[in-house]
């Protein structure tokens, strides 16, 4: 498979870019933040996403979706990264839709997937419990109770957790923290008794929540996949999420970079354009190369996911690790090269730095994924 966009993919990118840059430039995020908007994203835009077939991008056509692949999802994520648009696309259309696609039984799919496709259902994955992403450390308890289970524990960084109509909760049905065996995914109604949701206002002004579950009762039908055997399903779902976040990060990096290069071509000091200084030229060139290499690694990972979700782990680890180091470098150089202006809230560049920091933690940072690669390679 060539590592370039097909004609159809280019068209998809152009239509996503057209919509997003028109309706949701960075000022869109800024006004949601400043207004302390309780939803944190535009429902109208989400409606447009559904109309264009983006909400159900990964959902099979039989469930009202577009039936496209992870490469296409990555294309949308990259465009989202360029303007930092807060959107349910990642949590609902990529992560939750994939979890249902991969792990759902016929009843679960036909109940939820059509609603995701038409934009009427928001969903999310609740995974992290500690400060760092450690899926196997999951300790939220699910104990059998009658015909179903009772869930107790807490989750953090639940993307869109304050608005989701459905939470896919990773819980421990057996074993202890750190073990692969004994993980189970549950479909939880956030309005169920015992669920407490605290919206967390994050550094990036995007949407997330902390969720606490106290003896939340769910039926046996709420199990997604198999009891105790959720780790493999979770691996796939998380890898899909990682590929998507990496794509958002390269879009973000590229946008910061383009803005910074423009600044170098316009800002004058010492009677010269600062872009004439070799010290800045070389740093800009290094960053450009970093971004191009990272972009290739991400395309490689998305194609690997499209080929076989279960065999993409190393490619995804490389992509998310590179996305992390590249985005961190891009936003730091972006602020530094904008000088004092880069430190002002009035200038957009800081928004990119804040979002990059959140994306870095989301589904594992560069250190986490570098470690995964070392383990996979046996040293």
């Amino acid at each position: 498979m060539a590592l370039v966009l097909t004609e159809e993919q280019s068209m998809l990118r152009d239509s996503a870019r057209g919509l997003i840059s028109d309706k949701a430039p960075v000022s869109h995020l800024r006004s949601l933040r400043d207004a302390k908007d309780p939803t944190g994203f535009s429902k109208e835009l989400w409606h447009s996403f559904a109309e264009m077939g983006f909400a159900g991008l990964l959902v099979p056509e039989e469930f009202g979706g577009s039936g496209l692949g992870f490469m296409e999802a990555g294309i949308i994520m990259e465009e989202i990264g360029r303007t930092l648009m807060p959107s349910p696309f990642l949590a609902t259309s990529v992560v939750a839709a994939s979890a249902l696609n991969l792990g759902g039984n016929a009843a679960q799919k036909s109940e939820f997937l059509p609603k995701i496709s038409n934009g009427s259902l928001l969903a999310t994955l609740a995974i992290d419990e500690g400060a760092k992403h450690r899926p196997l450390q999951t300790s939220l308890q699910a104990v059998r109770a009658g015909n179903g289970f009772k869930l107790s524990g807490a989750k953090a960084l639940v993307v869109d957790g304050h608005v989701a109509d459905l939470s896919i909760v990773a819980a421990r049905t057996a074993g202890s923290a750190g073990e692969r065996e004994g993980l189970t995914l549950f479909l939880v109604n956030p309005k169920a008794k015992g669920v407490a949701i605290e919206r967390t206002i994050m550094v990036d002004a995007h949407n997330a929540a902390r969720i606490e579950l106290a003896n939340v009762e769910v039926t046996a039908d709420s199990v997604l996949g198999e009891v105790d055997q959720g780790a493999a399903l979770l691996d796939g779902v998380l890898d899909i999420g990682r590929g998507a976040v990496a794509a958002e990060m390269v879009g973000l990096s590229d946008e910061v970079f383009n803005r910074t290069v423009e600044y170098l071509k316009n800002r004058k000091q010492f009677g010269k354009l600062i872009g004439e200084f070799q010290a800045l030229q070389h740093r800009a060139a290094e960053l450009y190369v970093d971004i191009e290499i990272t972009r290739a690694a991400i395309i490689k990972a998305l194609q690997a996911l499209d080929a076989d979700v279960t065999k993409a782990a190393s490619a995804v680890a490389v992509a998310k690790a590179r996305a992390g180091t590249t985005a961190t470098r891009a936003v730091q150089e972006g602020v530094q090269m904008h000088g004092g202006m880069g430190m002002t809230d009035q200038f957009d560049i800081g928004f990119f730095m804040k979002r990059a920091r959140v994306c870095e933690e989301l589904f594992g940072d560069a250190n986490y994924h570098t470690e995964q690669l070392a383990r996979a390679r046996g040293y």
Partner: protein
Amino acid sequence: MSETETADLEQFRAETRAWLEANCPPEMRKPATSDADVFWGGRNTKFASEPQRIWFERMRDKGWTVPDWPKEYGGGGLSAAEHKVLRAEMAKIGARPPLSSFGIWMLGPALLKYGNEAQKKEHLPKIAAGLIRWCQGYSEPNAGSDLASLQTRAESDGDDFVITGSKIWTSYANYADWIFCLVRTDPAAKKHDGISFILFDMTSKGVTTKPILLISGYSPFCETFFDGVRVPKSHVVGTVNRGWDVAKYLLQHERAMISGMGERGVGRPLGQIAADSVGSDTQGRLDDSMLRGRIASFDVDEAALAACAERAVDLAKAGQAHPAFSSAMKYYGTELNKRRYEILMSAGGVDALEWESERSRQGARPRAWLRTKANSIEGGTTEVMLGIVAKRILDLPGA
């Protein structure tokens, strides 16, 4: 790609895999460990082993020493997609390149673009068949990064040019049969405008070479002197005084070649090589956590660069490549290869310090480590590459 094309390509893949399986000797499926393992061709060449000869001859007969060159010039006539399949299948079994040569990597592409029909017919088949070994006369003592300031003169005398001057860092000039050389044909013109690209036989009267001893203890480079060397004007490639165009085009290929020099993705993972000397803990992790982290970061970057190199080829095929992108790859690939050898030296510890012993294969590792330091200098320094990216790709201001 249409369904028929995909099916054809899959058939080509199956045939290629079967052919390689049947024809690539097992000895040629291991990474080269010394320069003797590399077959360079040329008038005075000798094969290091029988499998090396067999492998070379079988590949040559299929035109696969230069798979994507036209058949009429000794190539395999493969499409870009087929060439990618062949490379992937060779990589899968660890097959060595059957023939390494500056003729293949550098001169060939330049001749295909700028050479006249007679020049192509004369030189390309001999490159493909490994009959003539070429060297590159570019740098001079006072023209390194500032290559266009070169001073080697070519004075017109009837049907000939008479060439006088000297070149430096001429790789393997002492083994080469012919040279492709940049010479100044118009000293009055601006520096980029008076240069010509010319070919001549290294046995011509007036050519002498002198190897330069490097920090690695090897002498892969030479000083090369021209004292009134007479060369027919028909040996100029492209237009007289427009040699800089040819030189730049060739440099793109040279940079692509150098960026691919690292042994990417072949052999054992670096972390396992390191474990041989450093040892592992009870969980099988390298018993030096800082080194392990460095290696893992290296592996991430190496895998990403491999994807980027693959993408660069795909972009070129799709007509979307920036012509200066090889400079970006050259910069990153060479810096990465230096990192690789810093890690190998660190992992090897005391064992990697031996310079002369059978045990160390005459200091193979430290010598290779030192050799890599030239990667970011030869073919344009890292600083020159970054300057090219800044100006030609990013369009930043200034000279």
